[in-house]
């Protein structure tokens, strides 16, 4: 079942189109990564999902219900972690989670139980002091705890790791991957290694459009054509070989660096063989022959060009 569905959503800010015809969906128990540069429209999209911004056209549905601008009933299915979550600094985490539980209409006993569970999950069980003394990482962890308080079917995280140090980032990613087992997650980010760790589906947002979307593994497979690295023992023959490789019709680019060459191909299976033939013919001493895994970064940079 589709937890979230966007159809032909558009949004302009003073004549400037920020989102142009955006359509995608997030299904149950999947982790969808919305990737884009700063200013690509990620936060705008999330605010529209929550009814905080009015979309100019199109339809957004959460659990089959239409999202309305202003007060929207669909938010009861949603847990939201803003990019920089702001809490009432005079409260303790337990008090804050109680407030969240009461707002979503839970009874005192389940609230206490849930609070204990979630604080243990995010590693804040022993910090019973006021939120004003919290570090950014701790606030982010509390942010996840509050987002999960109402047992949402969709967790929306807006750049959850971008303001954190490496340790804090790892902690948040670990918590999110646990949370992802129980709920669908929509995560926006520009940190691609986070996406590779967490997401199973991605959408790349550029200039208000999704330029690429699908299963992460499919996308990586379809971009597998790309790169071959050949390391040679003899540095002098690098330049000679680079020239010969560049002359091959199917090679679209060759880059020489110290004793290695990076060759760009379209079809690794057949063209790779021809490269091997060339290496044999030239009688060069090859240290390493490696098909490079396309990183998400390559894919990203390629599609937003």
């Amino acid at each position, binding site marked *: 079942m589709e937890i979230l569905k966007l159809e032909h959503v558009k949004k302009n800010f003073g004549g400037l189109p920020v989102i142009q015809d955006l359509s995608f969906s997030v299904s149950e128990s999947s982790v969808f990564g919305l990737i884009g540069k700063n200013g690509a429209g990620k936060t705008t999209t999330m*605010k529209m999902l*929550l009814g905080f911004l009015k979309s100019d056209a199109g339809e957004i549905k959460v659990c089959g219900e239409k999202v309305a601008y*202003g007060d929207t009933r669909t938010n009861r299915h*949603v847990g939201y972690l803003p990019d920089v979550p*702001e809490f009432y600094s005079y409260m303790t985490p337990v*008090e804050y989670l109680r*407030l969240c539980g*009461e*707002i979503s209409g839970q009874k005192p006993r389940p609230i206490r139980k849930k609070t204990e569970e979630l604080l243990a999950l995010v590693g804040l069980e022993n910090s019973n002091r006021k939120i004003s003394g919290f570090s950014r990482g701790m606030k982010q962890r509390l942010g996840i705890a*509050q987002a999960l308080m109402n047992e949402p079917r969709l967790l929306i995280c807006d750049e959850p790791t971008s303001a954190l140090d490496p340790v804090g980032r790892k902690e948040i990613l670990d918590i999110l991957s646990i949370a992802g087992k129980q709920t669908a997650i929509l995560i926006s980010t520009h940190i691609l290694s986070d996406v590779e760790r967490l997401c199973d589906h991605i959408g790349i947002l550029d200039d208000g459009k999704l330029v690429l979307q699908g299963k992460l593994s499919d996308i990586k497979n379809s971009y597998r054509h790309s790169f071959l690295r050949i390391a040679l023992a003899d540095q002098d023959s690098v330049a000679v070989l680079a020239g010969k490789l560049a002359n091959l019709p199917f090679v679209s680019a060759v880059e020489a660096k110290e004793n290695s060459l990076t060759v760009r191909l379209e079809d690794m299976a057949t063209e790779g063989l021809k490269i091997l033939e060339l290496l044999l013919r030239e009688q060069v001493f090859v240290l390493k022959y490696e098909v490079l895994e396309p990183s998400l970064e390559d894919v990203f940079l390629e599609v937003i060009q």
Partner: protein
Amino acid sequence: MNGLIAFTKKEFLEQIRSYKAVIMVSVLFLFGMMSPLLAKMMPDIFAQLTVQGISISMPEPTVLDAYGQFFKNMSQMGLIVLLLVFNVILSQEVTRGTLVILLAKGLSRSAVIMSKYLASLILWTVSYVLAAITDYGYTVYLFGSFSLPHLFFSLFCLWLFGAFLLAVLLLASTLASGNYGGLLLTAAVMMLLLIANVFPVSQKWNPVALASDNITLLTNAETFGDMSVTAWTALLLIVLCLILSIIVFRKKKL
């Protein structure tokens, strides 16, 4: 309903932890205590001032003077304190973004407005009643027991004006942006009302009378009828302000 109760509880906690409650209660309490004392001591204070052989003689202060002091302090400094204490209750949450998480939990925006009004009204009421009781006690202690016509109604009028001010402030905060936009807009509205009060035709309908004619009410029983019209007008305006606040806030971009 869950949201309204939970959010109102949060408002009370905020009043206590951010010292809003302490400030309101203690400042108004001080006014209640000081006013009769100041009225009683005024002739003695002036007696000390002998300016170049001129001695100022003042009539013996009365209960009316004591209440004159109380209404003057409350309607000026008291209401300013009220505005300053409650100025940021809504705007700060919008600018800092603390509301975003709770609204994303399904808290309704009308509950936010109603909770804010209810909690601030209750704090105003508690501080005001405490001040009025203290004032009454001290007046009896210093001037002996007394009876003034319409004293309760006159006190009620000033309280109602405070309630009106809070509603205007809330509406102004939903309309204006920034931490001081609401305060500025409220000040502008009050200026307009004060200017309008110059014209006798509109005086009857102008809530400003609730905070300026309290002493007249104690001495001249004939103004009672006019004042009750003013009170009903103020009540109507409060309801109107709240409804408008909700309508505006529901469509506010966050």
